[in-house]
């Protein structure tokens, strides 16, 4: 029987979606049948022409997918709240059951307890007011005694503690003072000896410096005094010289006056004698 490919085979062959053996069969058929090949080539040409269609460029919009708005009932906040309250209540009930919780309400009385009801035993002997008062007094006395003994114990303990602390502290302080005093004696000795050495050195320096100064001062004084004496003597000599010159001048003047007087006398005498 001669092989003839179906339309499906031909179109699969055109798009290369046939198995190898089938492809060879179709190829062989097309080679043997020019009409079929011609039709096939026309379809291939159509394909080539179709490739000329351009792709359109489009940019995907920035899509922000919203959260699932259909919130499931059991995911709603209100349901969760109710569920949590119910769960808490359930938990309480379970614990109450496990611990055998009993809640009794009768008259003005509310009882909450665990285990069996023991109200009968409690209500067997009702106490009177005086008994209650006595119980309270006894309890107070007992409490007071306990408090007093406890206070005294505490006080003793405190005293002991304070005393021991004081002893320890005083010992420590004594030790510290002792250390301090010994330390201070040696330090003072060192300090005084240092001071003495320093003062001695200072005094030596001072005296040395002072002696030198005095020496130079006296030398200067002596020189100045000798200069002064010399000056004074010169001045005295000049003064004497002046006085002597003055005396000499006076003497000369006196001598001239005397001479004049004598000459006048002589003249007078000679004139009188002439007159006479």
């Amino acid at each position: 029987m001669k092989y003839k490919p179906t339309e499906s085979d031909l179109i699969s062959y055109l798009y290369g979606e046939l198995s190898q053996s089938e492809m060879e069969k179709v190829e062989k058929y097309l080679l043997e049948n020019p009409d079929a090949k011609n039709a096939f080539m026309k379809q291939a040409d159509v394909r080539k022409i179709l490739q000329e269609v351009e792709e359109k460029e489009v940019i995907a919009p920035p899509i922000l997918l919203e959260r699932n708005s259909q919130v499931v009932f059991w995911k709603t906040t209100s349901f969760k709240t109710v569920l949590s309250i119910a769960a808490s209540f359930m938990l309480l009930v379970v614990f109450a059951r496990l611990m055998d919780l009993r809640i009794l309400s009768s008259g003005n009385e509310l009882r909450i307890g665990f285990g069996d009801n023991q109200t009968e035993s409690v209500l067997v002997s009702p106490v009177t007011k005086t008994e209650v008062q006595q119980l309270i007094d006894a309890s107070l006395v007992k409490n007071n005694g306990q408090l007093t003994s406890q206070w005294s114990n505490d006080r003793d303990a405190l005293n002991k503690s304070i005393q021991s602390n004081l002893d320890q502290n005083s010992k420590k302080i004594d030790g510290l003072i002792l250390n301090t005093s010994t330390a201070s004696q040696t330090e003072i000795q060192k300090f005084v000896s240092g001071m003495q050495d320093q003062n001695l050195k200072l005094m030596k320096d001072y005296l040395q410096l002072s002696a030198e100064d005095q020496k130079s001062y006296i030398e200067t004084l002596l020189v100045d005094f000798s200069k002064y004496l010399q000056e004074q003597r010169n001045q005295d000599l000049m003064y004497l010289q002046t006085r002597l010159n003055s005396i000499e001048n006076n003497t000369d003047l006196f001598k001239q006056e005397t001479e004049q007087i004598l000459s006048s006398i002589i003249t007078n005498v000679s004139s009188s004698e002439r007159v006479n």
Partner: protein
Amino acid sequence: MAGTLLDIAMMHSDGLIARAREGNSVAQNKIIQLWYKRIYNFSYKFFFDHDLAMEVTQRTFISMHKNFQQLQDVGRFKSWLYTIAVNYCREELRKKRKDRLSPLSELTTGTEESHGWEKSERREENPEHQMQQAELSDLLQQCLLELSPEQREVVIMKEYEGLKFREIAEALNVSENTVKSRMYYGLNGLKKIFDKRNITKENIGYEI
């Protein structure tokens, strides 16, 4: 198909799809980024109308987001997504036909002059001198429109979206043989349309 990084990412996105199916919104966003162009181009070729293509694309991804958990097999995501897109395309096509009942309803008749394609008819008289690459692309898409919707969706899925016949069959919920048959007759129909418009491999090659 596997030409760009985007295509490679699309082919190796099983993990992403699995996370998206579990409700991971980041993964779903990434899937939208990956597949947006493909679905848009499919819709655009189906309608040759930007607005309708955008409408179908957006509705497709909204539906994907809502019904992601219904995806049974991650490996069938591609056909599943195209199923949604095809359904919306068909829905829009029905609306379109309903809106154009009066004179415009005659658009799909092959022998009569169509209102919307008057320009193309003029071009057809002398395509060698008028067709630029973009115009050629437009013209070819107009030719695609002349196919029946069933043939058109198969041709677009196979020729431009690179789906296997099995995947197309899954997407359209028909047998693989039906898909191949539609493809076979779709190509033959296109051949006749091209002949009518004087579009041949030679004159297209010359123009290019």
